[in-house]
């Protein structure tokens, strides 16, 4: 076992942190979220051109840096620490992994576009009945001559409103919850001018990102829209979900570190009854418990990211353990950070309120604690 970073990895961490500290701030990003386009395209451009982090986990042949778990760890944690709303996990981790494993010309071209910052990709997988379990695919894709015809509904598709490419899961065979028969399709996309057969309802999320509900009603796609073999997408999707889960765990660790630091600092500054509230033992012990939750989340972050290349059952078990841990930490630390900030913690005036909203969303993204605990139980046999 070894939890140390190489010099290059430490340098990457410092570079990303410095970029975000100087170029990314809460006011501008929330303005973009609430009254602007939903993101800051110039930041994304910076990720590609100045930091190169959009290619961090891509192979060199598509322009990537061929990085592994350690690179993913330092990048996603830094993004979480700065509360970055731009869709790194959606585009680079989730779509990026699916594209790499699908292979083929279109996938490689899109990978290249992601690396240079030209493509933002969203995955339309959640459906009204799936409750976070993406093997529950009722959207259908049927062949019609050289084309595919898609019908179905997807909900809460993260980043769809700002994506220019959409990955869509659809069933080409099998029953509603079969893992066999799930296929992956690619679609050029513009939420403000959706193609024929697509209805889009875009909205903001509680954590100031953008998402959309989509319905496909006879959407026609060309033959090469199918990525990989028909009906065989589950294995890659299953891995992709684990990778994305590990990435949001890591992002969550970044959020948690910031929230804990802010809370401790606030408790040292804020005076009531003539003394800093951080001098009260009950609050000190609470903050210690928050600290221990954060440290456990850090361990979970290692556990998840360093298990991604293990065989699927071990990978799934580690990722589920990590997500349960992160969810518990997110709730405990988030709620207590608000509590210790008092009513100020409930406003949008301090950072803590914004982080709390993100932590609330993170708790459930890619499966809730209950869902991951149940998966862990099933895997433990």
């Amino acid at each position, binding site marked *: 076992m070894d939890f140390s970073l190489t010099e290059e990895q430490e340098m990457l961490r410092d570079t990303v942190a410095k970029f975000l500290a100087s170029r990314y701030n809460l006011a501008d990003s929330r303005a973009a979220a*609430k*009254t602007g386009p939903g993101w800051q395209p110039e930041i994304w451009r910076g990720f590609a051109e100045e930091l190169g982090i959009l290619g961090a986990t891509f192979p060199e042949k598509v322009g990537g840096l061929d990085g592994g778990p350690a690179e993913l760890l330092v990048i996603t944690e830094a993004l979480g620490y700065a509360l970055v709303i731009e869709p790194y996990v959606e585009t680079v981790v989730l779509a990026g992994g699916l594209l790499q494993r699908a292979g083929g010309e279109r996938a490689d071209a899109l990978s290249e576009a992601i690396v240079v910052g030209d493509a933002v990709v969203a995955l339309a997988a*959640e459906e*009204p*009945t*799936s*409750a*976070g*379990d993406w093997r*529950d695919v009722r959207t259908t894709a049927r062949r019609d001559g050289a084309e595919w015809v898609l019908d179905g509904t997807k*909900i*809460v598709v993260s980043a769809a409103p700002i994506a220019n490419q959409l990955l869509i899961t659809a069933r080409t065979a099998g029953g*509603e*919850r079969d893992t066999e028969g799930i296929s992956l399709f690619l679609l050029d996309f513009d939420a403000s001018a959706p193609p024929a057969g697509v209805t889009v*309802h875009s*909205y*903001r*999320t*509680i*954590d100031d990102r953008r*998402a959309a*509900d989509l319905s496909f009603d006879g959407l026609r796609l060309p033959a090469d829209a199918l990525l990989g073999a028909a009906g065989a997408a589950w294995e890659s999707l299953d891995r992709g979900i684990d990778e994305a889960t590990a990435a949001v765990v890591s992002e969550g660790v970044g959020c948690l570190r910031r929230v804990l630091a802010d809370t401790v600092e606030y408790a040292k500054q804020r*005076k*009531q*009854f*003539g003394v800093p*509230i951080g001098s*009260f033992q*009950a*609050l000190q012990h609470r903050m210690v418990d928050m600290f221990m939750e954060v440290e456990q989340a850090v361990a979970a972050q290692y556990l998840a990211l360093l298990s991604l290349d293990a065989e699927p059952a071990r990978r799934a078990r580690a990722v589920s353990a990590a997500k349960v841990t992160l969810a518990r930490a997110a*709730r405990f630390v988030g*709620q207590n950070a*608000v*509590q210790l900030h*008092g*009513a100020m*913690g*409930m*406003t*949008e*005036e301090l950072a803590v*309120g*914004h982080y*709390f*909203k993100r932590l*609330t*969303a993170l708790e*459930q*993204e890619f499966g*809730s604690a*209950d*869902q991951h*605990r*149940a998966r862990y139980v099933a895997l433990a046999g």
Partner: protein
Amino acid sequence: MDLNWSAEDLAFRDEVRAFLDDKLTPEIRRAGRLMTSVYPDHEASMAWQAILHERGWAAPAWPVAYGGCDWSLAQHYLFGRESTLAGAPLLSPMGIRMVAHAILGFGTDEQKDWFLPRILTGEVFFCQGYSEPESGSDLASLSMAAVDDGDDLVCTGSKIWTTHATEANWIFSLVRTSRTGKKQEGITFLLMPMDLPGIEIRPLVMTSGEEVQNQVFFDEVRVPKRNVLGRIDEGWTVAKYLLNFERGGALAPALQVWADELGEAAAAQPGPGGRPLAQDPAFAAKLADIRIRTDVLEILEFRTIAAIAQGRNPGPAASMLKVLGTELSQALTELAQEAAGPRGRVYQPHATMPGGPIAEFSPPADGYVSGLDWQAVAPLRYFNDRAGSIYAGSNEIQRNILAKAALGL
């Protein structure tokens, strides 16, 4: 010892039920059902107050002479319970349930005669000016100055967490009239019209996006001394008296309603493994624990109300009920947010009835809602409900009180 109601009580309950069935319009019910916090939509709440006032039930706890009801303890309890079960919105607590009791207890006849009828009709709508940016849990350290100037007090400073300040036309406030002696001395309880020159309001945007809370700034605001309630420098006595009313309500009935609604919603909501969420053992266990804690809270609340009604000092029970009730409510709003699933991440306040305007949000032109109303309510209620353990004396302060008062520590 008996858990059941008497025949008289049941008859009264039926009378209240019939009234509620008759008078609660779908719009008003909607305002109750889709509340995102303890603060109702202002218009719906005032509309309901008018209906209650017409029936003579707007302020049942007041003395009959001022428009209250000659009810037994059980009747008061049942009225509140039935109103909650029927989905009636809460009335604003600041006037009828709070400052009115201070006026009844400390006001001059002139103050009583002027304010009380107007509070009943809604002509006078109060907000509360207690907390200050530097005085939260340590309320007695408040510093907003009220300088004696002949017939007036001249107020300068600021109050924060003032709910519905923009809707209110009056504010009741604690101000500092003297800085000698203990910090609890030298505080004065003052009633001010909100349209006095020098008052400015800055709405605060909460994590729910709602502008219900405000900071109110006072710049040499001149208030006649006849607006003092009680005596100058003795406002802390009034505030302490009011505390008894602030923490008086029964929360269990509302929690029962919400738990039932959540149970029904979960029965129709897809859960893990393709079964309804209600059949997920983890969810079912959490909901059951909440229901059990609510069954228990109901007894504790009733026991306390009964003690008060019998003229006994409920002792530290009020602090305990505040802690138990708010933590239970938080467990419930937390579980509802879990139950909302992926839809719980969608921000759609237009499908709810929030307590105030929403900052920086334009509802979709077509009114689209992702999922069901309760899923739209869930995140906002979860965010707003964090206040439960913070306001009206944080739960940490309540535990300090209990350590002393209940355990002698």
